[in-house]
């Protein structure tokens, strides 16, 4: 039963607000559903990753369009992943990223290339929204798109983009994040970059930030540790994109081969109970797809009650997996709860 898992980026979720720390939940939900569609924030653990043919890696804006019925997902054996590098990356850091790409070719057998560098630095900046969630900007989106178009013209079927992010090793927000509280300050700008590229080019895209290495933190939270194992955040992006489904416009003529995945086939969407106000979840709710709202504390308080949505509550992703299994097997979730009120007859 195809199932969507959404854990919005940059809102400080206890599960999924750090370095791919929702991956165990995603693996469990993939096993329960047999087919999980989720996004890079869930799957990306920098140097750590997990590849599972039951998990479809779909960038956030494409996930929104899939949920709205504007896109179909076409599973593929392998994507050719073009590498887009920000001209603002220093030579040594750039070399580190190229070596990661080469390592993924040599050790994992991924099809990577070509490599294109933007004609000017992208000039990424970070910010926080009124609610405290992370947002960000890039001053030169035109340069990002020019480089993306070059990669597409050269045969890339997916794009991994690496932008130079501002270093701020002394910031209190970074210290809090590394110690397991607060929001991922990079996440909002990362989402803007990958949303823009994927939306304009129609290709699977994902982003890794280029940053200088941080000094050792003896109090590092395990959920943030995946980002401190290497010099780059790129391996998970290359692995995720290497088998990401292709994006087919819903109004494009049908092609031969396996049928693509459409939103009509989705049997459930799972999201944090206090972060239900995103495009994908609302689109699913409007289609009548069951929404499983998981207790996963975050900065927001946009609940089912506040939005007037009907949801199936779950106290954990373990319970959500049980609910997915129930839906998959045709068992009404209400039958699993007590008390079970009697049916009332209509007058």
């Amino acid at each position: 039963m195809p199932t969507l898992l959404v854990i919005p980026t940059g809102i400080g979720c206890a599960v999924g607000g750090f370095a791919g720390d929702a991956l165990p939940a995603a693996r469990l939900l993939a096993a329960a559903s047999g087919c999980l569609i989720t996004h890079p924030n869930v799957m990306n653990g920098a140097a750590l990753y997990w590849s599972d043919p039951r998990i479809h890696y779909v960038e956030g804006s494409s996930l929104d369009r899939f949920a709205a019925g504007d896109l179909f997902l076409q599973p593929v054996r392998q994507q050719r992943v073009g590498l887009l590098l920000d001209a603002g990356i220093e030579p040594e850091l750039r070399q580190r990223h190229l070596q990661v790409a080469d390592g993924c070719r040599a050790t994992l057998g991924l099809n990577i290339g070509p490599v294109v560098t933007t004609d000017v630095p992208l000039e990424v900046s970070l910010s926080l929204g009124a609610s405290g969630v992370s947002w960000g900007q890039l001053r030169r989106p035109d340069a990002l798109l020019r480089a993306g178009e070059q990669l597409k013209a050269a045969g890339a079927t997916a794009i991994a983009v690496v932008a130079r992010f501002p270093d701020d090793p002394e910031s209190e927000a970074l210290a809090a994040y590394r110690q397991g509280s607060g929001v991922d300050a990079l996440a909002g700008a990362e989402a803007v970059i990958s949303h823009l590229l994927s939306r304009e080019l129609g290709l699977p895209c994902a982003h890794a930030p280029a940053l200088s290495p941080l000094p050792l933190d003896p109090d590092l939270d395990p959920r943030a540790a995946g980002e401190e194992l290497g010099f780059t955040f790129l391996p998970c992006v290359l692995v995720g994109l290497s088998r990401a489904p292709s994006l087919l416009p819903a109004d494009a003529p049908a092609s031969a081969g396996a049928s693509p995945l459409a939103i009509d086939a989705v049997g459930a969407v799972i999201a944090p109970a206090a972060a239900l106000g995103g495009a994908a979840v609302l689109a699913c709710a409007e289609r009548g797809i069951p929404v499983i709202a998981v207790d996963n504390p975050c900065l927001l308080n946009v609940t089912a009650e506040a939005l007037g949505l009907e949801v199936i509550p779950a106290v954990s992703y373990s319970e959500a997996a049980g609910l997915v299994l129930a839906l998959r097997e045709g068992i009404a979730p209400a039958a699993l709860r007590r008390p079970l009120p009697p049916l009332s007859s209509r007058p």
Partner: protein
Amino acid sequence: MSLGELLPVLLQLERRPGSLRAQVESALLRFGEPLRWAITAVDQSADGGSLLQIEAVVIGAIDPMCSEA
């Protein structure tokens, strides 16, 4: 490919009956093409209505005076 600026938007929106998603996207279109958005707070008013806080990034329109011919 021509592209406008990326603009942050903070918006308060009174909820009306009908599709919530369509209301948000329609309200954002006044500022540009929505790229990424979320409802980040909901306040209940005394009359039982809801006031939504939307945070977004939109692609602003290119100023026609500045665009290439």
